[in-house]
């Protein structure tokens, strides 16, 4: 049974029903990033050199390309959640807040998309 008035209901007032969603997504992506980021750091350090042929050969290897793709996707998502929180905490005027959140969303989709496309180009050798 709802104690909300019919007017309150049609105006969409009340809880947004996703209070814990953001928090939980941030933790899950954080846990996923522990092995992914460590794999990335140690792989780069283990390479004999960071010149074009070596790095290209490393990223063309299917497992490396796949893990790099997961890393970039999860990291972009985690960064999006985190920077969103910063804007929500410190940007108080409604217009600036909506604008900043929109820009953040576009920037993250752009950067994540470009990174994934670049990895796929290397992996599929074009």
């Amino acid at each position, binding site marked *: 049974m709802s104690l909300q008035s019919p007017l309150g209901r049609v105006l969409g007032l009340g809880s947004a029903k996703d209070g814990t969603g953001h928090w939980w997504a941030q933790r899950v992506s954080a846990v996923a990033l522990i092995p992914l980021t460590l794999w990335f750091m140690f792989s780069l*350090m283990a390479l004999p050199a960071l010149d074009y042929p070596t790095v290209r050969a490393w990223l063309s290897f299917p497992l490396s390309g796949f893990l790099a793709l997961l890393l970039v996707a999860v*990291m972009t998502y985690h*960064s999006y959640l985190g920077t969103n929180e*910063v804007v929500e905490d410190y940007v108080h005027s409604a217009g600036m807040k909506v604008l900043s959140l929109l820009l953040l969303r576009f920037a993250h989709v752009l950067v994540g998309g470009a990174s994934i496309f670049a990895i796929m180009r290397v992996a599929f050798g074009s």
Partner: protein
Amino acid sequence: MPARARPTSPHLNIYRWQIGNSLSILHRLTGIALALGLLALCYWLVSLAGGEQSYAAAAKRFASPVGLFGLVGWTFAFLYHLLNGVRHLFWDAGYGFERTQRHASGWFAVAGSIALTLSVWALIWAGHRS
């Protein structure tokens, strides 16, 4: 209505500065730095996909003084955010809230991230020289 200074509740500035809030702020700052690092990672990957010339141009930028400063800074930001993030995950699971535990884990995150950053770059430097 005339604007009159209303009594407000105690604000942040009445609290003493200490390790707990410092590390919390540093977690946020390193997070923002790492979000910017995402741009550098994207640039590096796109340059790799672009071919030998674009990769060489990117590598030259990363090897410049400003580039190296950024890479060392991002290494520290990553390692601190990682160690302090694990500290947060333990808190989320309900462990490590005692005063001594909080302080010990906090100093561990700071000392650990500095030590690991130095180790990583010492290894890179040693590998580069050999």
